[in-house]
């Protein structure tokens, strides 16, 4: 009886998940494109790009306990790979990207040469972040550097990366980054239909990556990951190697940030160091904290909401926005450390308990046997 009842609640839980996923998919794929004008749709696509990166943080931090303050680096690697390809496309064969001409570079740097090929560029969008994350992760996690130490190291990586980008003016476009793209995979980025296409690509990629991450979390691998988060040494004593599991997860989350960055470039039309440094990286992490770090959906929600708030409020009310943002963090961390998703879950539990307390006899009986 108890197994049966448990099975039933599990099924309803899963069914609820599917319904919610379908509803959000319907909202993003059908309702939003019909209801929003092209400008707003473009903004939504931008927020959804950040949501993809936030999903990666949710995986690494929420599930794996790795507080990564350097996701901007991976976002940037993906973005620059895409940007380099687009710049070379605009320059034509044998031509130089405009910013190189301005800073007096006469020959295309060898680093840029392979990015003429779209296949190479798109592969690098994933491979480069994964490689950097895997090397760093392996070196750091193998030596059992974790927690605050890892957070500080990843933050230092973001700082070093941005300073390097700004310094190598001729190679990376310096502070301005890469911008002014005229030909994006044969489409004109100014065109309304192009913006719409990008939007759908972003939504589909986000949906696919969410399902992938969910599958990963539900698998044995995901359980191991959560076990490592909650007691790394115990898992090691059981014969597993936490470093491998953590490195793989960190690399997956880096790949997500890389993909997010690559999508961001055609959607917004720029990639620059200002988007990647210590502050944007930590902002993304805090967005995940506010959305709910232990829930993948919460991470996505946080990424969208915070970036929406940032764009809308900081334009009209820049001073107030900073106070609001700072105050919001303090409040959320102190009062609701599990974020919005945690609050929703709490409310759900409260409702369920109320229902259980109602005098409907058979239901109350069944509930009794289910361990809460």
């Amino acid at each position, binding site marked *: 009886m108890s197994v049966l009842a448990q099975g039933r609640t599990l099924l309803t839980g899963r069914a609820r998940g599917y319904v919610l996923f379908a509803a959000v998919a319907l909202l993003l794929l059908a309702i939003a494109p019909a209801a929003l004008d092209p400008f707003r749709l473009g903004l939504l696509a931008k927020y959804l790009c950040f949501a993809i990166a936030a999903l990666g943080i949710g995986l690494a931090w929420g599930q794996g306990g790795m*507080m990564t303050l350097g996701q901007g680096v991976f976002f940037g690697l993906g973005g620059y790979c895409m940007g380099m390809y687009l710049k070379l496309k605009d320059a034509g064969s044998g031509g130089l990207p405009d910013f190189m001409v301005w800073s007096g570079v006469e020959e295309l740097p060898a680093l840029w040469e392979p990015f003429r090929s779209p296949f190479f560029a798109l592969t690098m969008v994933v491979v480069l972040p994964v490689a950097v994350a895997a090397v*760093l992760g392996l*070196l*750091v996690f193998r*030596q*059992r*550097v974790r*927690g*605050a*130490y890892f*957070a*500080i*190291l990843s*933050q*230092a*990586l973001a*700082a*070093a*990366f941005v*300073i*390097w*980008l*700004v*310094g*190598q003016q001729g190679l990376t476009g310096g502070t301005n980054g890469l911008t002014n793209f005229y030909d994006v995979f044969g489409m004109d980025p100014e065109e309304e239909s192009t913006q719409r296409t990008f939007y759908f690509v972003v939504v589909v990629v986000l949906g696919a990556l969410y399902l992938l991450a969910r599958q990963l979390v539900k698998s044995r691998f995901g359980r191991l990951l959560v076990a490592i988060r909650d007691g*790394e*040494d115990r898992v090691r004593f059981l014969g597993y190697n936490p470093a491998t599991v953590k490195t793989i997860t960190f690399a997956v989350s880096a790949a997500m940030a890389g993909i997010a960055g690559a999508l961001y470039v055609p959607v917004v039309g720029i990639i620059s160091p200002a988007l990647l440094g*210590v*502050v944007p990286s*930590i902002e993304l*992490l*805090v967005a995940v*904290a506010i959305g709910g770090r232990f829930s993948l959906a919460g991470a996505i929600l946080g990424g969208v909401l915070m970036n929406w708030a940032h764009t809308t409020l900081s334009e009209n009310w820049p*001073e107030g926005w*900073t*106070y609001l*943002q*700072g*105050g*919001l*963090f*303090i409040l959320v*961390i*102190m009062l609701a*450390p599990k974020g919005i998703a945690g609050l929703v879950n709490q409310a759900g539990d409260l409702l369920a308990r109320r229902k259980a307390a109602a005098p409907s006899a058979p239901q109350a009986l069944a509930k009794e046997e289910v361990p809460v």
Partner: protein
Amino acid sequence: MIDQLPVGLSIAGALLLIALGLTFTFGQMGVINMAHGEFIMAGAYTAYLLQDLADDKAVFLALPVAFGVAGAMGLILERLAIRRFYGRPLDTLLLTWGVSLVLQQLARDLFGAPNVNVTAPGLLEGRLALGGMTIPYTRLFIMVLAVACVAAIWLYMNRSRQGRRMRAVMQNRELAACSGVVTERVDQLTFFIGSGLAGVAGVALTLIGPIGPSLGTNYIVDAFLVVVAGGLGRLRGAVLAALALGLLNSFVEFWTDASSAKVVVFVAIVAFLQVRPQGMFVLRSRALT
């Protein structure tokens, strides 16, 4: 190239002054205080405000005043928020980052966004010629200040009763409490001193260049690296790591350029952690984590 030596030493001095405060708040108490950078900024603006009172002597007067101002800010933060988060270092990071945002904006509203200058004392004008190199007196002052602070902290930690209590609480909180140490009082004082040192560092930074609301953010990442490389809560480690980082930075900058130097330093630290994952000096204990 020999000229890089005093440059590196003075960078190391400034880094050390900032990292000393972190040795208290991060090293002894496990709090990742992102608002430490804003306490530095508060110290710097204290010197700026005191110029009206003391003209070019402001920097000297500001040293004790900034210690008090930044220390008080730290104490308020500890009492209001941080004390609920002991044992959860990553949450303190998020919390204090919110605080740092608010403080930065507050400084922007109070003092304006553009950078301001603090006049260096007339006493510190000119340069000292030593062997083949010349050192500005302001830079020399920073080095001397750093050495003096290290000496004072060493005396405090190793020779005073209060310092012994602090170390006892850090090594084993329960046992210290059982032995009659009021751990809460010790926490408050530790946080006060750590934050106060940030104020002193802020005054020192006014001698290097103009100051602005985001003064602290530029230094805080490097200072945390110093603490990580030196070993948590170890004075010797902080001194050696600050020296190593400052010198490495200035010499690599000389050989390549400023932007590559940061990358080299980062790679060097990750490589170093392969050999000593817990920093240069580790407090030995039998605890697992």
